[in-house]
């Protein structure tokens, strides 16, 4: 690892850690580190870094490379240029629906689940009786795996014949006839007659995901709210601001670091969505997502490694946007 220049190893004040990268050292500090110490530090960083680079970033790069080939895992690898992408964007029928589903997932998270989590955090931040109990209830879904969330919600969403609770309740309360009971997870017809390829069952899956996402955001935000200097609120109250004004004009702006984290978490979770739809039907019949297209094309059902990698490249490119935002943020707080 070329970045581990032993000469540069000196104990440093925490604040200099970030700045040390670019700032030329004017005065050579007396190094307390022996040669053995430097070797130990180099190994401490070098070994995990090598494994991490190989398994994570290396694999991401190989994915990019494979996207320009038609490798099927058996035949020799052949370079095909942009063929996979052309096919993906023009003739492959599932790409645009999958992308639309990921975008919808994100929109529902951004427009509903995340604001809902923030609202709950704001409500629970006041000194009030039972706050801990509410928090525990809202947060419990977060400790369940997304796969279990899928199973638990299947019990609600299952069709009438399979004893789904929602349909059974609707029919027994005479809100719908037994024949008209919706098939929440099976009906892939376009919702509200939209021309946009958004199916009814993806909305049901997203709602189940929201159940978990809301509690996650609530806890993150609640911790942020607790760290807001109380004198800020007092000052706002003395100036005659009501609670809503205090939140939007005083608390929300000083929460900027947490707000970035929450945006990033929301976007990443929406892009990673996989488990729930896979549990329901392996991500088909209206439940296509970019993530399930990758595994279905390249591993589970077919062995189109080049084509699947092209989808992975699309997902990677989109993911780099929130990751970039996050890193700029980290960089800034290091300075």
């Amino acid at each position: 690892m070329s970045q581990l220049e032993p000469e540069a190893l000196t104990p440093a004040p925490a604040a200099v850690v970030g700045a040390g990268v670019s700032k030329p050292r004017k005065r050579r500090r007396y190094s307390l580190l022996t040669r053995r110490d430097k070797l130990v530090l180099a190994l401490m960083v070098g070994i995990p870094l090598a494994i991490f680079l190989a398994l994570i970033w290396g694999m991401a790069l190989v994915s990019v490379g494979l996207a320009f080939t038609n490798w099927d895992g058996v035949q020799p690898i052949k370079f095909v240029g942009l063929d996979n992408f052309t096919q993906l964007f023009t003739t492959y029928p599932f790409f645009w629906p999958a992308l639309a589903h990921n975008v919808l997932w994100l929109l529902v998270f951004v427009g509903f689940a995340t604001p809902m989590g923030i609202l709950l955090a704001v409500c629970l931040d006041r000194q009030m009786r039972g706050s801990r109990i509410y928090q525990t209830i809202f947060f419990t879904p977060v400790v369940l795996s997304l796969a279990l969330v899928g199973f638990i919600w299947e019990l609600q969403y299952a069709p009438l014949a399979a004893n789904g609770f929602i349909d059974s309740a609707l029919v027994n309360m005479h809100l719908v006839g037994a024949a008209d009971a919706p098939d929440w997870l099976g009906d892939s017809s376009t919702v509200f007659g939209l021309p946009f390829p958004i199916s009814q069952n993806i909305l049901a899956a997203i709602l189940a995901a929201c159940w978990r996402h809301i509690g996650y955001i609530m806890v993150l935000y609640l911790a942020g709210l607790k760290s807001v200097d109380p004198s800020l609120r007092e000052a706002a109250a003395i100036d005659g601001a009501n609670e809503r004004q205090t939140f939007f004009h005083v608390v929300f702006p000083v929460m900027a670091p947490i707000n970035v984290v929450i945006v990033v978490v929301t976007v990443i979770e929406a892009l990673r969505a996989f488990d729930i739809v896979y549990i329901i039907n392996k991500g088909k019949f209206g439940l296509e997502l970019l993530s399930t297209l990758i595994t279905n094309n390249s591993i589970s059902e077919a062995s189109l490694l080049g084509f699947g990698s092209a989808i992975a490249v699309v997902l990677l490119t989109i993911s780099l946007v929130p990751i970039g935002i996050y890193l700029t943020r980290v960089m800034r707080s290091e300075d």
Partner: protein
Amino acid sequence: MSATVMAGQRTTRNRARRRLSRAGLHIFLSVLAFIFAWPMLYAVYMSLRPYGEIVINPNGPFSLPSTLNLDNYTTVWNGYPFLGYYWNTAVITIPAVILTLWISSMLAFAISKYSWRLNLLVLMLFTAGNLLPPQVIIVPLYRLYNLTFAGLPAIPLFAQLSDNGRVYDQFVGLILIHTTFQTGFCTFVLSNYMKTLSKELVEAAMIDGAGVLAVYRRIILPLCTPALAALATLLFTWIYNDFFWALMLFKTGDKRPITAALNNLSGQFFTDPTQVAAASVMAAIPTIVVFLALQRYFVSGLTLGSAKG
């Protein structure tokens, strides 16, 4: 006189209004709490109902029970190797949590306590890598895991850890990817935590002649116990809950950890939703117990990660 009366009226009115809004808030939160708890309560309820009783009931599952018992649990427990699934989960989760904390604490120590060229870049590579959707790397990773090359058996202990000459379909493969992936997050959290520790401690120890390893083990690690405990709770839950890696990197059904095994069973063997409910509850119990017992650590682990970002 009238001024004080008016002021008094205003405060009582304000107090009344505040009490009313507080009552409204409680109603809003209780309704929402019920909606949130419902799917879990219903899963427990279903798991306790005999399926036959639901089938003959004209109201289906939307009904009060005539009997509740643990039959679904005994059926599922006796019918499938559940103990084995829990064991598989433990064999993957416990080493992965320990390894992740060990490696990431050393990394964070080297990054936050010593200044060297490009250490911020290294931290960013770890942090950003942890945020990648795992599906982005799965295609080549799957092929890599399936490779059998001459060098592999030369690795010490490899023969004991893998019975097919590959890392695919092996516990060691799953431990490897979990440890690698989670190291990114933990390094980030721990290095932020260590930056808050006084640097004089390190310098004083080093002037006294302590080596890097001694500083790490005797000074930094003990001070990081709260952060390590919080992260351990979090990592346990995340790795226990993993579905994707186990699904992609395991082939043998009996080797699967519980979450992935459940998917296998529900697709092929479970005949009715009450059994699915019982199995789901059984799979959920360990994480819920850990969460309720260690809630404080759990939440502080999550917030450590976001407090500075």
